[in-house]
């Protein structure tokens, strides 16, 4: 046994003081009474006479000595050697991802992990430090190198489970970053093992050994893993997938609701490991639909899913061209585009359009909005230098997402303006002679094409409509995407043309305000449910009256990896690099003083009882 605060043993001097108080008698005032025999023979004197009296046995004395002894014993903080081996610096990675909300261990996996870590904190010696990292989609340091048990306990109790995944790689990187050179450290991972795959960056190992403490026991869970609304000419329908991830057969009831109310209830029986797809009707007026199962399982996060049923709002796109069937057809491939075609002479401005394509035409003032300018006439601001012969073309960066599925192998360009001196933006497609297609993000996503489409065989290749699709989706992402997102996944929101305010109302009713001048990225998607985007926009183009435009997107778990819940027995973790010379381990301490203090409290209660019983 070790005493963490041996100096507190000096408090043991209180014991003889208590005994001395019993030797001493209190000085009682003398009162003369006319008839002493009328007064009851009762005395509550447990103290002593002037100046000393014979020490008599007293239960109170015994209890008070015991209380004092126990309090002194607690004050010296006795500690037993603990079973766990600790290092001077202990780095604890606590999995706070969605799967840790599972209740297969009571009250939850996260609380079970916190309980184990709390016990570990109590075992820290006076010189030991601990760093606590909450492992979520973005890991964060909760407590850094602290030796204060109270602050560690407070930091630990403040950790809550998120609805997102656990990024083990990022957490390990963070942990490696807090280890000082030459410092003896040890890592502890408290997790159910349901984490995102490790990066290859840890091939060289970690600067500390790490232990995996498995949390959780069961993978029994029935979850909703997909919900998609499909529209056809006749009707709309929702496709829902229900998956029994457990080993045992389960019967659940699927409750199907729209924002107008209950639509359908279907009982469902699933064998162990079975998944079943349901086709569910979507009412015409429904804007959102919700499916819910009453599985009463260990994991509630995947028992309810939502989807947006409303058809995405259409974008108005203006094509200003003397005539270009290739461009027009490529734009019309987007079902959410309403394409207007105008001759350059009739162009009066593009204020009412979300995007404008100028083909061989450039207005005196280009709009402050997304646009594509193709082969700008000489003398206009975006025009390049004299035409040069080109030939084959190539991607400036083969990995550019804008060129996904775009093959430029058989594409040739006869001639193009010399865009070499242009400062428009970065080059997307280039040639030996000059850049051909340039793109830029600021102030709006805009594209400059240096050659006439007709001077190329590109429109005849499959890559052309794909490139146009990629460009238009990049320039005009759905203002508010109607698909489902995962928790913590960022959502790109393009403010409406002329929007003065853009706000997002989260499922819990809280509101976040976004900037209106540019495309915004909304990252507060930690809650599952329906998010409402409210924008204040002109009632109609050119009018000063305003209206509030609402659109929605949904956040659902939709993660088979998380919903399968089965804790991983052996998690592959990076090995530790060779330990530095002289690195040692020592046993932690198991502090027992709280129990002794509790016993002292019980004795105090007994002493109070004894006093009132007149013992």
């Amino acid at each position, binding site marked *: 046994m070790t005493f963490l605060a041996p100096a507190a043993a000096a408090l043991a001097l209180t014991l003889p003081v208590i005994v001395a108080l019993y030797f001493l008698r*209190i000085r*009682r*005032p*003398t*009162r*003369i*009474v*006319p*008839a*002493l*025999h*009328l*007064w*009851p*023979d*009762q*005395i*509550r*004197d447990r103290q002593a006479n002037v100046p000393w009296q014979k020490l008599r046995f007293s239960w109170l004395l015994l209890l008070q000595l015991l209380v004092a002894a126990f309090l002194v014993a607690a004050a010296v903080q006795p500690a037993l050697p603990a079973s766990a081996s600790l290092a001077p610096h202990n780095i604890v990675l606590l999995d706070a991802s969605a799967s840790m909300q599972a209740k297969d261990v009571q009250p939850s996996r996260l609380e079970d992990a916190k309980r184990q870590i709390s016990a570990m904190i109590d075992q820290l010696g006076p010189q030991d430090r601990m760093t606590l990292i909450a492992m979520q989609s973005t890991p964060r340091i909760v407590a850094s190198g602290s030796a204060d048990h109270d602050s560690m306990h407070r930091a630990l109790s403040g950790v809550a489970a998120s609805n997102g995944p656990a990024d083990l790689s990022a957490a390990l990187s963070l942990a490696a970053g807090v280890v000082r050179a030459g410092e003896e450290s040890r890592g502890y991972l408290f997790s159910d093992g349901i984490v995102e795959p490790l990066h290859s960056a840890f091939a060289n190992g970690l600067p500390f050994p790490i232990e995996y403490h498995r949390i959780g026991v069961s993978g029994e869970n029935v979850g909703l893993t997909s919900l998609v609304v499909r529209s056809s000419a006749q009707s709309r329908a929702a496709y829902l997938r229900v998956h029994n991830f457990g080993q045992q057969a389960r019967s659940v009831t699927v409750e199907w609701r729209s924002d107008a109310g209950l639509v359908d209830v279907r009982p469902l029986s699933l064998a162990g490991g079975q998944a079943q797809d349901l086709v569910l009707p979507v009412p015409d007026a429904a804007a959102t639909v919700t499916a819910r199962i009453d599985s009463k399982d260990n994991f509630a996060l995947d028992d309810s899913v939502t989807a947006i049923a409303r058809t995405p709002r259409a974008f108005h796109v203006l094509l200003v061209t003397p005539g270009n069937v290739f461009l027009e057809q490529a734009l019309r491939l987007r079902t959410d585009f309403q394409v207007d075609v105008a001759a350059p002479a009739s162009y009066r401005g593009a204020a009412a359009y979300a995007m404008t394509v100028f083909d061989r035409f450039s207005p005196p003032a280009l709009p402050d909005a997304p646009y594509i300018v193709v082969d700008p006439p000489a003398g206009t601001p975006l025009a390049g230098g004299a035409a040069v012969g080109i030939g084959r073309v190539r991607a400036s960066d083969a990995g550019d997402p804008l060129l996904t599925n775009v093959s430029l192998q058989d594409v040739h360009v006869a001639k193009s303006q010399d865009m070499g001196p242009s400062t428009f933006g970065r080059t997307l497609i280039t040639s030996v002679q000059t850049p051909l297609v340039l793109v830029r993000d600021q102030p709006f996503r805009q594209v400059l094409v240096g050659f006439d489409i007709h001077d190329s065989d590109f429109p005849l290749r499959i890559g052309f409509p794909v490139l146009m699709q990629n460009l238009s989706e990049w320039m005009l992402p759905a203002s508010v995407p109607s698909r489902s997102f995962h928790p913590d996944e960022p959502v790109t929101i393009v403010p409406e043309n002329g929007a003065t305010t853009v706000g997002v109302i989260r499922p819990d009713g809280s509101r976040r305000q976004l900037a209106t001048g540019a495309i915004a990225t909304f990252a507060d998607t930690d809650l599952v449910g329906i998010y409402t985007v409210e924008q204040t926009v002109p009632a109609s183009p050119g009018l000063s009256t305003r209206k509030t435009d609402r659109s929605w997107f949904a956040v659902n778990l939709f993660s088979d990896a998380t919903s399968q819940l089965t804790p991983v027995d052996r998690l592959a973790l990076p090995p530790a690099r060779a330990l530095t010379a002289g690195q040692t381990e020592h046993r932690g301490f198991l502090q027992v003083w709280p129990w002794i203090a509790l016993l002292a409290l019980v004795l105090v209660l007994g002493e109070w009882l004894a006093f009132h019983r007149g013992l």
Partner: protein
Amino acid sequence: MASSPLLEPQLLRRLEALAVIVRRAVKGQMGGERRSVNRGRSPEFADFRNYTPGDDYRLIDWNAYARLDRFMLRLFVAEEELPFNLFVDLSGSMDWGRPNKAVTAKRLAGAIAYVALASLDRVRLTVFADAPTSGGAPYRGRHSAQGLFARIDSFPAGGPTDYARLVAPIARQRPGMTVLITDGLGEEPLEPAITALRLARQEGAVLQLLAPQELEPDWTGDARLKDAETGFEREFTATPATQAAYRSALALRTEEVERVARRRGLRFARLTSDQPIEDMVRRTLRQVGLLG
């Protein structure tokens, strides 16, 4: 009227209007204002009887002789003095309280004695603690009041109470009136003394005098209790429970004194030392029928 340190002259003047009420005739040694069992000289006619030689011929009723032709003597009620005994408890327990019970007892005894002396009664004073002490020769007549006051005032208070030793002096008294002033708190019972009063054919009264602080103790907490009579000490912790137990014991004791007194045909009054003497005498003692 001479002034007295024990009682104020104004009070004494007011007391002259009172008299001790005796329920039966008395047999004294000297003439007084009390109806005697003997026949004597007084304005009050009692009876006739035949003359026998040796009778005072001055008492022959000559009118009766004229009608009956024989000598008849007129007999008158004799008026004699009342043997009035005062027993005053001056034990240690009486030397206590605010106002002091012994001082109050002396003043009360003086007041009652003065009423008796004003009626030409013969007042014998006895103070007692562990033993009775005579207050000297009987006092008679108003002029002897100052001597009685000085005598009663000269006795110190102290010592234990022994009611049993009152039995002998009471038994020696001629039938008359006895007033016993005590707190009744002696460790021994008061009953033998009261029984002795009955046997000595004493018409009397027991006046129990207590201090307000006895009835309602005004302290709590730890204390060393010391008996005012015996000097015995005991450590004590006063709590609401112990105070209640004390009050209960005191009530039992005082009820016992009253019960014994009334059973023996004596008048009883409970007085507190903070009562004015005039209030005790003119109101309380008149209520119990001792004075009128």
